[in-house]
């Protein structure tokens, strides 16, 4: 029983998707690389080919190095804290305390709330005059009376990180919790018969079981955080004095404030290469660890 022309139908069905992806994802990806070898700005006529000149100029540009440094710090801190908080709260939920179902259904609110709103909300809560968190810190005399989160680079970065961690950790919580609730009974039973304590239960039973989910969630959150734009843009706009400018903020500004398109394209190619390299490195590292263990 076969349809006529069966061999062509799958391709026909794929066509709309292929056209959209080709035109708006693949072609732009390619164009991006080509643009990075041209001199192209909205304030000049023509776009001559300049070879590696953009890369050479940018690699000696202090702005890009400090942006790379900031992006890496931003990603690392966010990832560590969200993972720790997420794992912790997943374990907390898995104790099945009374009311854990309520928290379980509420915990995705931070993740569903649009990130721009998260940014504004934390700006308000950390505001110098109207911010409840700042007020609390001042009342407890933990900070001086004229304290502001947004005057120095380090504190502004911390403020944006808090907002981002609040947004990202529930993703870890829920994914890890979902996996934790599927641990086969016999694993747990065997461990109980062996008389393991709570810590051993985690290191020998739970953790090995949830590890794949932890790894794939970390991979996803890494990509999201590395490229994060909304929260930083809304809370600090890269300031003060460009001290919180990460790679994505830099690329966007270069393109839409200074209209230097070839520069922005080059920066984004560097950014993407860096991200891919880090992922590749982490992958090889994981493989190595597995080999050493085996």
């Amino acid at each position, binding site marked *: *029983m076969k*349809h006529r022309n069966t*061999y062509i*139908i*799958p*391709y026909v*069905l*794929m066509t*709309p*998707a292929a056209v*959209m*992806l080709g*035109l*708006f*994802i693949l*072609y*732009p*990806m390619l*164009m991006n690389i080509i*643009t990075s070898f041209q001199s192209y700005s909205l304030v000049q006529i023509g776009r001559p080919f300049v070879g590696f000149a953009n890369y050479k100029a940018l690699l000696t540009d202090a702005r890009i190095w400090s942006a790379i440094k900031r992006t890496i710090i931003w990603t690392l801190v966010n990832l560590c804290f969200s993972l720790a908080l997420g794992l912790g709260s997943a374990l*907390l939920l*898995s*104790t*099945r*305390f009374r*009311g854990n179902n309520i*928290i379980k259904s509420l*915990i*995705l*609110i*931070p993740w*569903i*709330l*649009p990130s*721009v*709103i998260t940014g*504004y909300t934390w700006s*308000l809560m950390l505001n110098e005059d109207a911010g409840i968190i700042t*007020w609390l810190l001042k009342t407890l005399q933990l900070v001086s009376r004229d304290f502001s989160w947004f005057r120095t680079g380090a504190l502004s970065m911390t403020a944006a990180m808090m907002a981002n961690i609040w947004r990202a950790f*529930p993703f870890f919580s829920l994914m890890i919790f*979902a*996996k934790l609730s599927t641990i086969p009974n016999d694993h*747990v*039973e065997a461990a109980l018969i062996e008389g393991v304590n709570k810590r051993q239960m985690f290191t020998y*039973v*739970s953790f090995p079981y949830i590890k*794949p989910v932890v790894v794939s*969630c970390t991979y996803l959150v890494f990509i999201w955080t*590395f490229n994060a734009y*909304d929260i930083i843009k809304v809370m600090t706009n890269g300031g003060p004095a460009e001290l919180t400018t990460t790679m*994505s903020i830099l*690329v*966007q500004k270069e393109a839409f404030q200074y209209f230097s*398109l070839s520069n922005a394209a080059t920066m*984004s*190619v560097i*950014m*993407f290469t860096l*991200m891919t390299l880090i*992922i590749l490195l982490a992958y090889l590292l994981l493989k190595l660890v597995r080999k050493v263990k085996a």
Partner: protein
Amino acid sequence: MKKLKIAPHSVKRYSKPEKTGIGLLALLLFVLVLFPFYWIILTSFKDTLQIYDIPPSLIPKKIDFMNYIAAFTQYKVGMFLGNSLKVTVMTVLGTTFVATPAAYSLARLKFKGSAQIKSFLGITQMFPVVVLLVPLFIFCNKLNLYNSHGSLILPYIAMQTPVSIILQMSYFVDVPKEMEEAAVIDGCSLFQSFFYIMLPLVISGIVATSIYTFIQVWQEFLIASSFITSRDLYTLTVGLSTFKGDELTDWGALMATSVIIAIPAMILFTSSQDFFINRLAGGVKE
């Protein structure tokens, strides 16, 4: 009889003081998760004086809707809302139209290159929007789309298509092969069997996938803030910046608008929570 699930970290294994500790931590988690959200709603009902109150009040003195009224009269939230709805709905329809046939084809029909296409779809998840920003801008300029909603909708559809295909495929795969075979034996053409047999069975999955797309597009900011320059065309997330002046920020109206933005996403999410948790958790299993 169904065997009860044993929780490896059950609270029953803890001593009394440890149980109190767990309770406190749970309370802390509850406050941490909910407080910022509560603060948005609370602030949206406060007037400017109350917002700057010291100490800040934790409960509203009265439920006052003036920030909501101001959002629609003083600011152009009605217009932003219309723009957001237009862009999001068109994107959702477009994505579904593009992704559904592709998902069906990849999940049910064997053809040369399907494995490569599937892995390519996974890889596209790695492409950050920032990397596509400049070339998309140049391309949309060429198509004369810059500063129009088309410059948002078309890239959005392309960006949402891969996830949409991947999610929908998981529903198509679930339909037993025999049902289709039976339809073919009864003389259905491929298109008839698709429309009469497959579609009714996977429609809930398609709807759930559309909800996912809706939530993603509804909150998009980077492209929307880069490609749209006229205020009249702003979407909601970009429109929020109009509340922020150099000197003063109208926090009340900003938070009222935030509530307006958050509500559709929350309702849609709650209505399909099972889908989100199960399918997405399934998606990252590998």
